[in-house]
């Protein structure tokens, strides 16, 4: 059961049950929708980017604890950050979640120092089929950022 404990950490269940920034934005913003057809998970993202900085964001979604917690944690991690920093963060997250691509950027000695709460998602690596759950919010984010770029 070691695996399950690592997967369903306290902080993940907390984000799952109390998702941050749940809702929609009114006024100017970009909107992106992501879904995993194989499991039915959905993630809707509203983003307000001003002068290269994400100044506001809101999400709606449904799905497993991993996909929803990952989205909620992502909200915490991106609001107030520059798009450049977010791209950097997304890169680190992707590496953390990828089983055999590059070295995990997470500092095992100082938990939370690199990716904050998001590091709790490391346990997902042991459940490859769930990785796409953790990725959903981030691929949706990439779509939203693409819109602000163009």
């Amino acid at each position, binding site marked *: 059961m070691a695996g399950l404990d690592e997967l369903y950490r306290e902080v993940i269940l907390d984000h799952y049950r109390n998702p941050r920034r749940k809702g929609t934005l009114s006024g100017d913003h970009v909107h992106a929708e992501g879904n995993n057809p194989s499991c039915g998970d959905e993630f809707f993202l509203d983003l307000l980017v001003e002068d290269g900085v994400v100044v506001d964001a809101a999400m709606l979604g449904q799905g497993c604890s991993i996909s929803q917690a990952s989205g909620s944690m992502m909200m915490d991690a991106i609001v107030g950050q520059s798009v450049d920093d977010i791209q950097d963060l997304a890169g680190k997250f992707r590496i953390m979640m990828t089983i055999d691509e590059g070295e995990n950027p997470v500092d095992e000695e100082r938990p939370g120092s690199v990716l904050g709460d998001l590091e709790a998602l490391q346990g997902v690596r042991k*459940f490859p089929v769930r990785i796409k759950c953790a990725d959903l919010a981030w691929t949706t984010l990439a779509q939203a950022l693409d819109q602000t770029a163009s």
Partner: protein
Amino acid sequence: MSDLRALRADFPILSREVNGKPLVYLDSAATTQKPQSVLDAMNSYYENSNANVHRGAHTLAVEATDLYESARTKVAAFIGTSPSQLAFTRGTTTAINHIAYGWGLHHLSEGDKILLTIMEHHANIVPWQLVAKYTGAELVYLDLDDDFGVDTSELDKVLDERVKIVSFSGMSNVTGALGPIDVLSKAAASVGAISVLDAAQLVPHTNVDVEALGVDFLAFSSHKMLGPTGIGALWGRADRLEEMEPAEGGGEMINVVERHASTWAPVPHKFEAGTPPIAEAVGFGAAVDYLSAVGMDNVVAHERSITAYALDRLSEVPDLTIYGPKDVSKRGGAVSFELGDIHPHDIATILDQDGIAVRAGHHCARPLMKYLEIPATARASFYLYNVPEEVDLLVESLHKARGIFGLV
């Protein structure tokens, strides 16, 4: 409980372990496991008689053709019909697409209606959406009653001469609910529509006498009834098969091919373009041999009792909601449920750690999920090789899931 326990030894995969625990396979509604006899039949075909069928005067070609055609005879007999009314397809999905393209495309016009039920699998929705788009026809749905059955009380309101096709499932792969075959086939006939039965879950789990059902077409898959992947069957009433056009063109299904036009081979060959799934037919034949030897009445009795036991035991689990009829005479062995706020995908992951295989998701029935206002369910489904201890393990593991998610 009709005890088929000894059969488990016939299924090699059932002795494997998953995550250090003996496999508890509760996903037969998705696909079933295969007995050794099915694998042996296919191996023997490849090792002794492999050749292309119908076109050869040499010994292997004759043997392969005989094996292929005798598989057709076996599968036809299994549902109580003649081989001339049974075409092999890639599966239920392809069979329904063939009906949609081969009959629907040629008989539907602008404003015509195709009547479905909201509990259909995507295989019995999307093909009709495609031909509806091509012909200007329209899809109409029957909703459910309070017990997850199809609500036929308002049938009058939707049934008129514009309804040309009524297509529905014999057993839901989500709720397990049986379809109102009698009511809907008669309703279809009363307005001159054809009735199409998605029997993907019905043929594996009941004793089907197809000629007595009153439907015009019926589709099912080998892999859901102990047979190999890559094959299924399309049955049709003789006159309907005659009036149906082939959906696919190619070798084997033709009579004479000229540069600009061709004529078709007789039914059922006109529906089998190209090299057919030959080894798969042989395996499919061996699968129905196996089921017949066990006896479908025994299979039904066994599934009923294990389903009743499962419904019972699951009802003990706090926070657990079952989506489907409680009465085992109205249902098959696919049991969908939710457990508190634990997402079905999380349930499946937790159960998998105990070696238990259940499905989680929309089960290819998204309109049904939307109608039930749930995003997904976890589903345990049973077949002849399951035993009550496996239900006990399921229940135990569900308690564990509650613990992990802190449900009290």
